[in-house]
């Protein structure tokens, strides 16, 4: 069973790794976007899927990473790869600043603080225009080939997956799940809930920080409105919920299916996919709270580790 799983993983990785050799540029770009969404959905899963603390502002970390990378590339002359990795440091620092006061408290304090965070970071980015270019943003010189980014984004998606796997199968993950199920009881058992929530949140914020850096390099131009859209957070949430929150492969499944759907819907109706995402969120919460993978897990007795 274990060997079979490893074999399948190897085949998929080999397939994705050699894909640029035999597919069109369109498919590569599209797959790159799926990688991005997988990494983002997994990052949301780490805090919200596991601990049950809802982050409504994950795009703030994404945007912070994007701006960190863009500034380091244009003002300091860094290569985009280390610049993007630095994005995780700034994103995690921001997470520490917000998480420390808000995660000590129970209740919706964290969720709503995150809802406001996005607007605040955007306002700050617009305000410090000597560094960030204000409303007109930052333009990066164009790239010759998208392939390095394809592999980088694939790598971060894989890293997100591995981190989630490691978390869910470890003591750390079990403790996070105990917070989701009953925080008071978890605390009574001696689990340091506040610290663990903060650790999960920091990891969860670092990932979109890096992804944001790659995104900035990918689109070559960032400005406040396009870098902090609410719809990015919505998309992360709906992908994770739809696939199955708190599972390892749920976000992957959700990201892939909904990216395909988005690609299909976008060509036909411009605004409707956002409304449909809202409807899917409502539908999943009311009728399928465990997501697709959760339902399959229950029905076919799949192992907890999927």
């Amino acid at each position, binding site marked *: 069973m274990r060997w079979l799983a490893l074999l399948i993983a190897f085949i998929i990785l080999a397939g994705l790794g050699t894909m640029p050799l035999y597919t069109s540029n369109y498919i590569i770009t599209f797959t790159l976007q799926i990688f991005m969404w997988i990494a983002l959905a997994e990052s949301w899963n780490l805090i919200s899927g596991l601990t049950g603390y809802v982050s409504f502002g994950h795009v703030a970390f994404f945007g912070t990473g994007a701006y960190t990378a863009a500034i380091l590339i244009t003002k300091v002359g860094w290569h985009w790869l280390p610049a993007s990795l630095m994005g995780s440091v700034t994103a995690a620092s921001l997470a520490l600043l917000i998480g420390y*006061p808000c995660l000590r408290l129970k209740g919706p304090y964290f969720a709503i*603080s995150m809802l406001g965070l996005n607007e605040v970071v955007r*306002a700050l980015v617009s305000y410090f225009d000597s560094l960030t270019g204000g409303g007109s943003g930052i333009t990066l010189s164009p790239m010759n080939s998208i392939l390095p980014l394809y592999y980088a984004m694939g790598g971060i998606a894989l890293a997100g997956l591995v981190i989630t796997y490691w978390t869910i199968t470890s003591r750390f993950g079990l403790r996070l799940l105990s917070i989701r199920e009953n925080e008071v009881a978890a605390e009574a058992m001696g689990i340091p809930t506040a610290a663990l929530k903060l650790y999960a949140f920091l990891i969860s914020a670092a990932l979109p920080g890096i992804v944001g850096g790659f995104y900035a390099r990918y689109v070559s131009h960032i400005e406040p409105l396009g870098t902090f859209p609410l719809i990015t957070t919505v998309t992360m949430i709906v992908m994770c919920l739809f696939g199955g929150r708190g599972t390892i492969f749920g976000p992957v499944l959700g990201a892939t299916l909904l990216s395909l759907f988005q690609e299909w819907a976008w060509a036909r109706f411009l605004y409707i996919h956002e409304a449909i995402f809202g409807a899917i*969120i409502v539908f999943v919460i*009311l009728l399928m709270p465990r997501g697709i993978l959760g339902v399959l897990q229950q029905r076919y007795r799949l192992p907890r580790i999927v």
Partner: protein
Amino acid sequence: MTIQITGTMLLQGIVSGLLSGGVYAMIALGMALIFGVMRVINVAHGTLLMLGGFTTYWLFALYGLNPFFSLLISFPLLFLVGLLLQRFFVSRVVGAPELSSLILTFGLSIFITNMAVMSWTSDYRSVEFLTGSFLLGPIAISKPRLVTFSFALLITVAAFLFLNNTKIGKAIRATSQHRELAQVCGINVRRIDMITFGLASGLAGAGGSLISIMFSVFPEMGRGYVFKSFLVIVFGGAGNYPGAFLGGLILGIVEALTSLLLSAQLSEVTAYVLLVVLLLLRPTGLLGGRT
């Protein structure tokens, strides 16, 4: 850029802050009621506010109805919308883990907002009804702000009277104090939930109507108000309804003074910093309350 800040300017800032704060307080009261009774933070509160704003806008644009008169329509209309939302959606997640209600109302708000974008486009529209200001000594008072403040105050006072003196109001307060005990005393808490949600939506809708007189009307106009209302609740202390009123006034003043002393862009940032500091130092709110 250094401008001499005079005492008059400070006073001016405080006065305009108080005037917007009254509207914040009314909107936040709705959110505080839902939170108190059901332990649900309604992330769609701002969306309901937007629907109220559009009600006023369309009545004004199509029929030339006086925006203040349209409060009599937007409040009951949104009361009904809230009642239905509670009946068919939110009631299913009352008592469930927080994640469910937060994400459910978030999904509802995304859905309704985008339906509004599709039906009415995301254009900014305005209700030009009352403009200008008058001087009171050295201080300029904007007419629309003063009138909206008075209406907000009137509605808030009416809501307090309702909560304190009517049987249903008392049942609402009883449910928010202890749900099970209220049930044991013969209160139909499901019904109270519906009335509370309706009342809260009505307050949000009335807020939208009033805001449409001062600012633009567009599908995403309500987004900032969820956070603002929450801030007001935290300032006042959760479950402390008079505290929410004080919280609204504080938020208004903080925003106005930030615009005056730093930059209008940063008004949200200071409010946010204040929230984080408050959560660190006094998580139960300025006046105290239940967490």
